[in-house]
């Protein structure tokens, strides 16, 4: 069981190994706080949808399973959206349409198909937590790099003093833009590959 959990964090990390969920990965990682909020939202949806799909796995008709997955996922995404609007309205505004877009995040429907529909509830829960935390860690790492290099901050806390505030650091505006997202993701993917090859040796 620890293997299932750890797989989501490293060997089968949805962002760095499986390259799933690229749309929110690139879009919401302009800051560490929105990235963390998105990650927690995905963990909730993944957990609830995996549990529900696992509970009804023996009753699913093969030709209707995708429809059932989509119905289940969209319900929990709606619930997450309502919670964010109620208790984190600022983050809900920042994340905007990317919260409803969790419905079409391949990680969630992929895990429903690959794991929850074939395994027990406990295994599905562990898998959801592993994949969800793996996604969240990847997003927060990516967002932290982009936020530090573009604004000199992480989670709003100053790390590098900006030139316009009397410091020495000139923020790289490109890091806050899509080009910066692609470049940072590419470099992190390369780093993960290097570490993996080193571990295999």
């Amino acid at each position: 069981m620890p293997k299932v959990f750890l797989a989501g964090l490293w060997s089968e990390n949805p962002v760095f190994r499986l390259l799933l969920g690229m749309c929110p990965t690139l879009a919401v990682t302009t800051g560490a706080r929105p990235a963390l909020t998105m990650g927690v939202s995905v963990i909730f949806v993944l957990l609830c949808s995996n549990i529900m799909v696992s509970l009804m796995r023996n009753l699913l008709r093969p030709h209707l399973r995708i429809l059932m997955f989509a119905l289940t996922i969209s319900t929990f995404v709606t619930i997450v959206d309502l919670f964010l609007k109620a208790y984190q309205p600022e983050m809900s505004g920042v994340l905007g349409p990317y919260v409803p877009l969790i419905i079409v995040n391949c990680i969630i429907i992929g895990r429903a198909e690959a794991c929850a529909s074939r395994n027990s509830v406990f295994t599905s829960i562990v898998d959801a937590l592993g994949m969800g935390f793996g996604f969240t860690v990847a997003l927060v790492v990516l967002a932290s790099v982009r936020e530090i290099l573009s604004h000199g901050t992480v989670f709003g806390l100053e790390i590098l003093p900006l030139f316009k505030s009397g410091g020495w650091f000139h923020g790289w505006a490109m890091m806050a833009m899509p080009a910066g997202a692609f470049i940072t993701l590419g470099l992190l993917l390369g780093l993960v590959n290097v570490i993996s090859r080193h571990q295999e040796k």
Partner: protein
Amino acid sequence: MLNKIQYFFRQSWLLIVATFFYALLVVVVNSGLSSQIEANRINKLNNLMKGLITQAEVFEKVIEELEVTDSHGRAVETAVFKALDSEGKLQGFAFIASGTGFADKIELVVALDGRCEHFLGYAVLSSNETPGFGDRIKNDYYRSQFSGAPVGILKLVKTGGAGSVDEEIVAISGATVSSRSVVEIINDFTKEVKRAITREGLSI
């Protein structure tokens, strides 16, 4: 025929049961959170109105349920607020204007001066326009064109001086539909709101 109906239910009973269960779940969560969501919306509205009419301390609702017919023939209701400073002097008016954008409904908070002759500006209350394109209706670059613009019929143009204060609003490059939606929404609502304010004798 009966066999077909039986086959249909044997295949899809889980889908039907799940639909009802999930719908009930969403209804329960929504009913529990709707009051908090509405309170957040009112808070956001007050903050946006204060941002547009900076000298205002108090906002009083002076016209409730004003019906406005937009350019597509749809009837929408809005409310009009008057903005008063700490001495009770009228600083302007604010109202919510809404309409169809490129992706979804756009809701704006629009502010007029006390004489209803010039716009003080607008802020976006809610929208789901394309990030990086139509979403730029929230940016100061586009919004600043409305500050000081004459109340009348604003015109959307493709090119021009975005810095000049007149009835011509330069569209956002790559977001003509969203830009046009904002201008149309403001034109449709301002016409009716100004008429209602004048009828009630509320302006300076």
